[in-house]
């Protein structure tokens, strides 16, 4: 037997010992964790408890059920009655391995259930309460709603793609009959959907009968009659404590799935949702204009980070074209080879996600007029060229105009990533340049005047991210450091 298995067995024995000491009886046991089951009562109570282990124990919580209670439609129990005792964040410290915590938590659950969960924060993932999820060739698709108002209480076609994304397509109609007549050539080949607003839900489980009743009859299309001929996807909007969320159900004439319905996980793609994870500075950054000079190995990733963080306007300055050999150390992919680096970066960012910043471009920054424009018209200028001549020009102009800009680059062909605040704030001394070792440059590519720098892609990305953090610090008036940051990246 492997040491890993022996350790899992030892952990189960410890758990068994502890539950027995708490008055629980071991009802079954075996070689696999899921063979183990206990029964007992909560301490000082007649509330019966059953504890079973999942196969992933001890790194998955035990399944605790209350055999004398109906937890069928609780927001805090799985479809099989297992109590939801810990969320993913609390699970990190494996609290269930302390049997006292397990029993206390179960008691808390009982108390909260009896009191109606007054301090509940709403989970908005209704699909996890259902055990029957639709799958296509073994993969669970995701239904994406981009504009609920467009489809609400209407009928529409649904199209899927190979990645498993399904979304409403075409013009939604007020009745199934109209949808069918307008889509005669496609209707048999595509899924039909209907959007329903379920409102504030009292419990997590919606039944097939409830959905059919809501779908109704007469002019809007008799759902029961429709189901004799084909499946129907119901895209539902619901709220919990006023917060909206979505789930989709697949209904068919056969009573398959659990309770006759399958579930498709559903997500929104409206702009507000797309930027939810962009960080806490979006309100401020959305009003900022930033110029990035050089959108190559460092600059392309830097621009991407600033766009993701919510900067309102990005002005990109670069004259070069994207060559095949650039791609390994660039934000853009092979399909954009041949475009200018500025266009390639914009295409990559705007093609990847909806919304995002406004963009403008320019090919060069070579004169003091160019730099004066940048430094006065933009809230921040970032030199990501790695070109010392460009740095000289910007530094000269910034000192005279009394402006601050950032230099973001890689030093020593990958030995250091550095961000310089130019000039340093509050008279702080600038960063040093010590510790650099000489590097032999031996790689060349036809069409490139300079030898190829051996800087690893990861160092470019790290420099870009450092640059983005410092840029955001300056833009939100909370500079991270008056002079910047210089971080060793290891030997090249």
């Amino acid at each position, binding site marked *: *037997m492997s*040491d890993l*298995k*022996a*350790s*899992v*067995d*030892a*952990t189960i*024995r*410890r758990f*068994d*010992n*502890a539950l*027995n*000491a708490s*008055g*629980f*009886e*071991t009802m079954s*046991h*075996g070689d696999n964790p899921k063979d183990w089951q206990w029964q*007992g009562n909560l301490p000082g109570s007649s509330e019966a408890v059953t504890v079973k282990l999942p196969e992933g124990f*001890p*790194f998955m919580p035990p399944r605790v059920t209350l055999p004398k209670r109906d937890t069928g439609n609780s927001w805090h129990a799985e479809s099989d009655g297992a109590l939801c005792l810990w969320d993913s*964040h609390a699970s*990190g*410290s*494996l*609290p*269930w*391995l*302390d049997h006292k*915590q397990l029993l206390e938590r179960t008691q808390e659950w009982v108390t909260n259930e009896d009191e109606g969960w007054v301090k509940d924060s709403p989970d908005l993932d209704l699909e996890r309460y259902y055990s029957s999820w639709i799958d296509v060739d073994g993969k669970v698709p995701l239904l994406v709603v981009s504009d609920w108002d467009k489809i609400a209480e209407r009928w529409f076609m649904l199209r899927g793609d190979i990645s498993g994304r399904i979304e409403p397509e075409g013009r939604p109609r007020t009745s199934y009959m109209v949808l069918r007549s307008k889509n005669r050539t496609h209707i048999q080949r595509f899924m039909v959907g209907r959007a329903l607003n379920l409102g504030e839900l009292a419990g997590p489980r919606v039944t097939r009968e409830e959905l059919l009743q809501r779908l109704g009859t007469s002019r809007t299309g008799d759902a029961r009659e429709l189901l004799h001929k084909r499946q129907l996807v119901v895209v539902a909007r619901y709220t919990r404590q006023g917060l909206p969320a979505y789930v989709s159900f697949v209904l068919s004439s056969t009573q398959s799935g659990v309770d006759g319905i399958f579930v498709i996980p559903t997500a929104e793609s409206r702009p507000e949702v797309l930027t939810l994870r962009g960080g806490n500075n979006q309100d401020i950054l959305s009003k900022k204009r930033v110029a990035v000079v050089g959108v190559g190995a460092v600059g392309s990733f830097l621009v991407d980070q600033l766009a993701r963080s919510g900067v309102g306007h990005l002005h990109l300055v670069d004259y070069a074209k994207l060559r095949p050999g650039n791609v390994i150390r660039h934000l853009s992919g092979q399909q954009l080879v041949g475009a200018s680096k500025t266009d390639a970066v914009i295409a990559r960012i705007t093609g990847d996600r909806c919304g995002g910043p406004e963009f403008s471009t320019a090919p060069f920054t070579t004169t003091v007029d160019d730099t004066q424009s940048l430094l006065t018209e933009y809230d921040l200028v970032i030199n990501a060229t790695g070109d010392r001549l460009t740095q000289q020009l910007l530094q000269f102009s910034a000192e005279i105009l009394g402006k601050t800009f950032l230099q973001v680059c890689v030093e020593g062909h990958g030995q250091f990533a550095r961000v310089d605040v130019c000039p340093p704030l509050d008279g702080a001394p600038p960063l040093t340049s010590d510790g650099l070792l000489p590097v032999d440059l031996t790689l060349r590519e036809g069409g490139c005047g300079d030898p190829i720098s051996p800087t690893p892609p990861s160092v470019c990305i790290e420099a870009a991210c450092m640059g983005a953090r410092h840029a955001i610090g300056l833009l939100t008036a909370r500079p991270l450091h008056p002079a910047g940051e210089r971080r060793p990246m290891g030997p090249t």
Partner: protein
Amino acid sequence: MAVLTEQFDDALTAIEPDADATNAKKAHEQVRDALKADPSFSQWGLESILIGSYMRHVSIKRVKDVDVFCKLLKLPSSYNPVELLQHTQRVLDKAFPPRNGQPRTEIQGRSVKVEFPEYDELHVDAVPARPADAVWEIPCKNPGDGWDQTNPEHFSILSSLRNDEFGTIYVPVVKLVRQTRRALLGLAKPGGLFVEVAAYHAFDAHPRPGGAGAYTSTAAYYANTLRVMADAIRNHANGTQPLENPAMPGQELRVRATDEEWANITTKWEEASSKAMAALASQQDCPAAKTFRELLGQDSLGSWVFPLPSGCNPDGTNRAVVVMPGADRLPSKESPTFG
């Protein structure tokens, strides 16, 4: 507490009679058929049943002897025990003639022993009995002394009731107790019936299932039964509180053993019960398992009855890592992390 659920289950499997049980049944049937074929036994209304540890389902491997209780419902009162035993032996001698020049039958005390070498040295003790009101009479250990009263079915009924009362844990615990006696005393007396009776009475002291302080594991029942038995054995041995014969309420249990044998079992049982209780209370599985292993000893083939858990070394030290609650071993400790 170290309950070692799987290991106690495996130990019970290790001492389960299995093939012995099948052979015992076959041997009984042969003896029964042989006696029934005799006109006298047929006339006397013979009904035979298996009694003893086998009937009460508390036999452990290896089953070497089986008791067949031959109820003679219409035995004439003129028959004395000596004559009855001699007649029984004659009938069985005919059915089971000598093999390799060695007789297969022998009168031993109150029964006739029949050897079954084909069943791995099993022998059957056929005990003739006559009705005596609500109980039965069997030859005394010295048949010349007349009849003794007994009621073996009654103990079997009591055992079954005890087993039902305690959620079927009683029978397995008695098997473990009998195995413990074998490990501690070997062939020395007192034998398995004595400890079984002591265990039966010990269960009177146990909390009932579902009640306050009820035991929840085989380990807890086993250790606490040994504990209660230690006092009972001492008191029976020194005569201060002899055990009652469950087969004959009001009758003291009579067991053959010398003073030295009584002293031996008293001392060893007290040691065993202390060790068992300490192992039960232990927070360390491996040393506890080593203790239970030593208490339950080895089977006839020299294999340990009680297995050590995987992750335990033979010396009782632990080599398995137990996963503990908490986040101390994580680099970020309790801090929320995101990826």
